[in-house]
C-alpha cells in the first residue's frame, strides 16, 4: 500500500473561493506591511552595526542584574536575550548581549569588550564567551544595500526568465507571488520580532528560489494543457493543471518541510531564525503558487494560441529532448 498525500484524479476547484483565498493573501500582505511600519524589524548587528556577545554559563540569567552590571560602562542601547534550545543540557544558560555601535568607532574596541565581559563575570564567574561579533556602521550600511540589491536582482532575474520562457502574464503572476512570499516573511519576522540578519536575507532568497520552482512547475503544466485543450475556459485549464501537479507539489513541499522541521528542532539555536524563515517561506510559497500566481493569470488572461510563431513540434511548446526521446 502506497502512501498517497493526494487521492488520484482530484478535481478541486481552486478558483471557486478566490475572493476568500486571494482576499486572505491580500489581507496578509497589507497586515504585514502595517506591522512592519508600526514595529519595524529587529535588525541584527549585520544591518545596524554594534556588537553581540554570546554568553554561556551555569547560573540562571537575571537580566535586570546583568543590565545593572553593564550600566556603568555607559554603552547606550543594550539588549540581553536568553537563548533556549532543546540541545542544551540542564543547568546551562546561554544569552545574547547586544550593544549598539559606539560613537566615533567602527568595530567595538577589544578593551570595551573585555570590560563588558569582566562586568558580567562579576555576576556569574563561570561565564564563557563563545562568540563575539562586532560590525561597524559603515559595513552594516553597505550590507543593507547589497541585501536589497540581491532581493531586487533576484526578482528581476526571475521575471526576465519567465517572460522569455513563457509569456509576460506568467512573469507578472510569478513575481507577484514572490513579492507576496517575501512580504509575508518580513511580516512574521516583524510580528514576532525575530532577529533579522544577513542569514535571513539568504533565507528570503531561497524562498524566492523555492517558490519560483513551485510556480514554474504549475505554469509548465498550464502551458502544456493550454495547447492540449484549446477550447476549454482558462480557469478550467488552470484547475486541471493544478490538480495534475498537486501530488508532486505536496510531495516536494512535504519532503522539504520534513527536512526543515527536523533542522528547526535539532539544528541548534544559531541557525534557528534562518531555518524558521525557510520553513515559513515554503509553506507560504507553496500556497502562493496556487492561490496567487495562478489567480493573477485568471485576472490577466493569457495568449491561447501557442502554435503560431512558437515551436510547433512538441506538445509542451518548447522541447529539450529529441523526438525519439533519447535526447538525454
Amino acid at each position, binding site marked *: 500500500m502506497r502512501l498517497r498525500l493526494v487521492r488520484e484524479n482530484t478535481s478541486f476547484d481552486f478558483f471557486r473561493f478566490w475572493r476568500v483565498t486571494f482576499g486572505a493573501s491580500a489581507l496578509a500582505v497589507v497586515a504585514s506591511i502595517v506591522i512592519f511600519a508600526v514595529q519595524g524589524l529587529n535588525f541584527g548587528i549585520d544591518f545596524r552595526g554594534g556588537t553581540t556577545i554570546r554568553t554561556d554559563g551555569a547560573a540562571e540569567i537575571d537580566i535586570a542584574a546583568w543590565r545593572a552590571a553593564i550600566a556603568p560602562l555607559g554603552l547606550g542601547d543594550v539588549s540581553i536575550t536568553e537563548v533556549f534550545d532543546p540541545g542544551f543540557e540542564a543547568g546551562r544558560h546561554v544569552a545574547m548581549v547586544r550593544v549598539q555601535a559606539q560613537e566615533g568607532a567602527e568595530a567595538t574596541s577589544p578593551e570595551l569588550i573585555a570590560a563588558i565581559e569582566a562586568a558580567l563575570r562579576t555576576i556569574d564567574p563561570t561565564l564563557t564567551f563563545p562568540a563575539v561579533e562586532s560590525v561597524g556602521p559603515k559595513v552594516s550600511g553597505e550590507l543593507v544595500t547589497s541585501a536589497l540589491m540581491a532581493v531586487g536582482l533576484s526578482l528581476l532575474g526571475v521575471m526576465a526568465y519567465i517572460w522569455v520562457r513563457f509569456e509576460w502574464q506568467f512573469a507578472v503572476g510569478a513575481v507577484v507571488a514572490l513579492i507576496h512570499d517575501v512580504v509575508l516573511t518580513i511580516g512574521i519576522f516583524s510580528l514576532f520580532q525575530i532577529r533579522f540578519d*544577513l542569514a535571513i536575507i539568504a533565507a528570503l532568497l531561497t524562498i524566492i528560489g523555492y517558490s519560483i520552482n513551485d510556480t514554474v512547475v504549475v505554469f509548465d503544466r498550464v502551458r502544456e494543457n493550454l495547447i492540449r485543450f484549446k477550447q476549454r475556459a482558462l480557469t478550467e485549464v488552470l484547475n486541471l493543471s493544478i490538480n495534475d501537479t498537486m501530488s508532486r507539489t505536496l*510531495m516536494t513541499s512535504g519532503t522539504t518541510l520534513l*527536512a526543515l522541521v527536523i533542522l528547526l528542532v535539532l539544528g541548534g539555536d544559531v541557525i534557528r531564525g534562518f531555518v524558521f524563515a525557510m520553513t515559513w517561506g515554503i509553506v507560504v510559497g507553496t500556497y502562493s503558487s496556487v492561490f496567487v500566481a495562478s489567480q493573477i493569470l485568471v485576472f490577466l488572461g493569457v495568449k491561447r494560441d501557442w502554435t503560431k510563431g512558437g515551436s510547433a513540434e512538441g506538445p509542451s511548446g518548447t522541447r529539450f529532448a529529441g523526438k525519439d526521446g533519447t535526447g538525454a
Partner: protein
Amino acid sequence: MLQIATWKRVLIWAVCAAGLWAAMPNLFYSRVEVHNDAAAAVAARGGDPTPAEAEAIARWPDLLPGTLVNLGLDLRGGAHLLAEVQLADVYAGRMDGIWPEVRDALRAERAAIGSFRRIDAAPGTLRIALSNPEGMARALEIVQGLARPVVSLLGPSGDDLEVRAEGAEILVTLSEAERTATDDRTMRQSLEIIRRRVDEVGTREPTIMRQGADRILIQVPGIGSAAELKAIIGTTARLTFHPVTGTATEATAPAGGGDALVLPSADEDGVLYILESNPVVTGDELVDAQPAFDQNNRPAVNFRFNPTGARKFGDYTAANIGQPFAIVLDDEVISAPVIQSHIPGGSGIITGSFTVEDSTQLAVLLRAGALPARMEFLEERTIGPELGQDSIDAGRIAAVVSLLAVLVFMVASYGWFGVIANAALMLNIGLLFGMLSAIGATLTLPGIAGIVLTIGMAVDANVLVFERIREELKTARGPARAIELGYEKALSSIIDANLTTFLIAVILFAVGSGPVRGFSVTLGLGIFTSVFTAVFVTRLMVVTWFEWRRPKTLTV
C-alpha cells in the same frame, strides 16, 4: 525504446565514481586532517619527518585523495576581521618624504625665489609659502622638475606630482595616476605583510583577501579572538634610524614640529631625544632580522639592510663618526649609540633592555616589515571552537535524521522507485561533498542548512518524473513507453524549475558575502548534482532495472 548508449552508461557511472572518490576523505575527516597537517609541516620545513609526524602521515595513505571540505569559521571557530586600509596615510608620508628634496632644490635657487617655508596643510598636501611672489614661476619650475614618471603596469602615464600656485603659495599633491598606482602598491604590500605575520603564527588555512578598493578580509581559524589577531597584524614595528641633534628632559623639551622630532627614550625615564625628523634609513630597507645576543650576552637583534639601505647607512656612519645615532622603534628611542666607526656592509645590531622573548618578537616584527598604512577595523568576529563544534553536531544530527525521514517517506510513497530515488539521493549528497572538496569550497553553518534543504529538494526532480510516469501509465501504452514519456515530459519542468533556483544561487554568490556566499555555493552545487542524478542517474538505474526484470506492469 529505453535505450541508453553504452558509452553514456559508462560515463555516468564514471562521473559518480569520481565524485564519490573525491568525497571519500571527508568520511575520515580528522584522520585526513592530521595527515595533511603533518605532510604540510614536513614539506615546509624540508628534511625528514619526526616520529610523531611520520605516525600522523601514516594514518592516511598518500595514494588516496586527501582534499577535504574546508570548515568555515562558524564551524571551526576562529577570528574574522574586515579591515579598511587608510590609503590616504601613504600620501601624507610621501609628501613628508619629498619635503627635504624640495627644500634643498629651492634653497639652491634662493637668489631667484627668495625665502620660503613649509606651512601646515591638509594631510597629503605640501604647502610652501614664498616671501617673494615674483619668484613663483621659477619655484614652480623647480618643484615640477622633481616629479618623476608614474611607475605603473600600464607603462609611464604622466608625472607623479601635481604642482600649482595658489596666491603666494605652492601646492604639491600626488597626481591622480600616482595615487592609483600608490593605492595598488599599498594594498599589495599590506596584504603581503598581513600574510607573513599571520603565517609566522602558523595557523591552518588563513584566508587573507582583498575586497574592493581598500579593504582586506582576514579569517584565521583556530585563533583565540579577534583581538589577538589584531595584535598580530596590527602591531606596527616601524624601525627608523635618525641623526640626533640633542637631548632634553621633560621640563626642557622644545615643541616638536618642522624638522625636529622629539621622542622619549624607551628605557631611560624622562629623557627625550631631539632628532632630525627625516630618517637616514628605515626598516623598509631591512632584508633580515634575527634574534641574537650582544657581546655582554644580553638579548639583541641582528639586522641587515638591502644594498640601497646599506649604502645610505655606510655613507652616514662614515661621515658622522663620533655622533650619536638613534634607533627608533614605534616612536620610542630604543638606543642612541655613538657611531664608533664606519659600518660598511649594512649589518648591525640593536641592543636594549630586551628579554629573549622581546628580541624574538622584535625580530619577527622587523622581518615582516611595517604596514604601509594604518588599518581601521570595520568588522570583527570571534567564534569559539566549542560553539562551532556544537553547530557541527547539531547540523550532523539534523542532516542524518532528515535524511532518514525523507528516505522512509520516499519508499512509502513510491515503493521500488522510491528506493531508486533514495539511492540517487545518497549519491547526490556524495557528489555534492565531492564537488565541494574538489573546488576547495568552505562549508559554513548556512551551508549545512543548504545541504539539508538540498536533501529535501533533491527528490523534487525525481518526484516530478515519477508523478509523470504514473500519469502516463494511466494511458496504458505499456510500462516502457510510460517511463520514457515520464522522463521526457518532466524534463521541461525540471529544467525550468532548477534554472530559476540556480539563477538565485548565482545572484546570492555575486552579491552576498560571508555566510550567504557559503550557502549559495552549496545551494548551487546541490542543484547541479540533483539534476544530474535525477536526469541521468535514476534514469539509468530505472532503465537497467527494467531491462533486467522486463515487468509487464508497473506500479509507481
